[in-house]
């Protein structure tokens, strides 16, 4: 509770600092995401009230740009490369398997808060295609049947 209070105080500072600048909304949303880790409904409502704009404006921006998260990120961020090389080497099948094992579609977080599954652009490791990363760990030359074991490792 007090942590939440501290976060809102930090957000208030950001808003006070930026509110009179033109185009303040995006930087405020970025800084809010830095503070809270994502943009929960309460935070969007708070910004709307402070800037005297409809919350639908903020939600529209938050859903337009991929950089904004509307739900908390998992402890492990899984990034599956969908770049050309990985794609032709079967990264779609890897992603499909991950969705099946985790039970969430790409872009979402598992209900236990452990994993966030993302499909990303080229990770720059085309020689290892298809590639995925789990936080900073890189997995290359993947096949879908390896996925359950990899996930099980992080669940322990």
């Amino acid at each position, binding site marked *: 509770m007090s942590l939440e209070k501290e976060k809102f105080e930090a957000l208030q500072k950001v808003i006070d600092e930026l509110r009179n600048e033109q185009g303040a909304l995006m930087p405020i949303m970025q800084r809010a995401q830095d503070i809270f880790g994502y943009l929960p409904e309460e935070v*969007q409502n708070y910004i709307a009230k402070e800037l005297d704009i409809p919350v639908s404006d*903020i939600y*529209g921006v938050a859903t337009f740009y991929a950089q904004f998260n509307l739900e908390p990120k998992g402890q492990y961020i899984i990034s599956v490369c969908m770049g050309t090389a990985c794609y032709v080497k079967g990264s779609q099948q890897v992603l499909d398997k991950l969705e099946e094992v985790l039970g969430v579609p790409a872009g979402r977080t598992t209900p236990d808060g452990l994993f966030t599954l993302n499909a990303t652009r080229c990770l720059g490791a085309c020689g290892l295609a298809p590639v995925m990363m789990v936080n900073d760990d890189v997995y290359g030359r993947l096949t879908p049947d390896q996925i359950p074991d990899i996930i099980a490792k992080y669940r322990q």
Partner: protein
Amino acid sequence: MAMVNVTIDGVKVQVEAGTTVLEAAHQAHIHIPTLCHLKDVNKIGACRMCVVDVGARALAAACVMPVSDGMVVKTNTPAVRQARKSVLELILSNHERKCLSCVRSKTCELQALAKDLGVDESRFDGANIEYPLDNFGPSIVRDPNKCILCRRCVAACRNVQGIGAIAAVNRGFKTVIAPAFEKKLSETDCINCGQCVVACPVGALREKDDTDKVWEALYDPEKFVVVQPAPAVRVALGEEFGMPIGTRVTGKMSQALKRLGFDKVFDTDFGADLTIMEEATELVSRIKNGGVLPMFTSCSPGWIKYVEHNFPELIPNLSTCKSPMQMEGAIIKSYYAEKAGIDPKNIVVVAVMPCVAKKFEIERPEMETDGMRSVDISITTRELARMIKDARIDFTKLPDEECFDELVSESTGAAAIFGATGGVMEAALRTAADVLENRSVENVDYVATRGIEGIKEATFTLAGKELKVAIANSTGAAKKLIRRIQAGDASYAFIEVMACPGGCVNGGGQPMVNAETRMDIDPRVERAKGLYTEDEKKVIRKSHENPDIKKLYAEYLGEPNGHRAHELLHTHYVDRSKK
């Protein structure tokens, strides 16, 4: 103002600097096709239907391109026509083309363009994602499958009304016009004004159709079904049958209602006169007894919900008077039922309103008469037109004689003008002046209350005392006015607010007026003219001189603001703000 010369398709026109190519062309009687443009509401160059050749390398969107001196515009080159068709095909590629069953068939701007430009099929296939309908509230249905993302509704809600219940969400094919957080419209601070509906060029936003409920009641032999049309309906209904905007069809309307089979055709105008009796009395009493001022009018259900969401601290400032529709309903189910010897439980009151928010208002728990709903069904002007067409009644050929039924229909000129912004104020002043001066004041025209400016202010001297009043039409204008008052920059005794720009004549339930027609004709002005003519033609122009109103008080209610009047005609409000 500096003038510039422009040549459009070989026609030379002189227009004010700053005029857009679209407006300049319109003055030269060239109608460049548009979809997202809506005069006074939306001008964002988003849909690209209006592209023209202005001599530059790329085609320009005429709706946002200002003219420059010597500009040569071509609106019909092969490249322009090809681009236009492609744009239209792309829009159609992601549109649910169920025109036969669409409520906007024949008034759809997309359908009309497809016909005009000869585009019947699209070469492309969009993602055509299927969305569920948002039809959970009583007033408005949101259908993203029909939406073409023109954003006219967003501009009406956000910029005109100052609300912003909907916005463009997501991107690419996944873009939808929706409330924040995927909420239902009924879970937001939407006030149900329906300005989004009348801004929509297609069938993506529409009223919830209640005509089946009316037919069912009409066919039920056990029910005594009565109807009451609002003042603003009679200057707009004719448009649905091809008559000019603002034509007065009071007689034809009453005849059509009779032919539809209503047992009695009453008039909300009587309820409007009654509202003035109660509201003027309330105002005089607040002034005399040091009550809460300024007092705000309470006829507009959109405005009421707006206050409840955004300015709950002003709830004590709202008049406690119910709307004319609710008063009429309450009186029908009490006084009329008693006089006619009918069990009010068997009476079905149908209201015909220029409004979609009325559908929400009739469901408010406090709108009861002796334990019964005061109004059972509320339909819009458009829904009534649909019923008349369905019944194959030749509306334009109906006689012009009014055929309203006795006891609760007789009305004055003061009631007629309720439908125009400033009308409730003017009607109240006519009665307040007589009450305060204790005589019949000759003047009935308070012209400073008239016109379509968002905020109007005036000071009138009644009984030697100055009365400062203000009028706001659109909740966006009301917000500005309230902020001025709260900042201490203005103060008034009495304020009229109507949620819709122009008042009820331009309500969310009125006939559709397409964007092209609105370039030349302002429905707010034309329909208001009809109401002021109706007022002038009335012999009696003050509510308190209405003989049937006098009779109602003498035989049933007692005094205005008296005990029975309070039970039947007054209400209370709820704080809906998220604190």
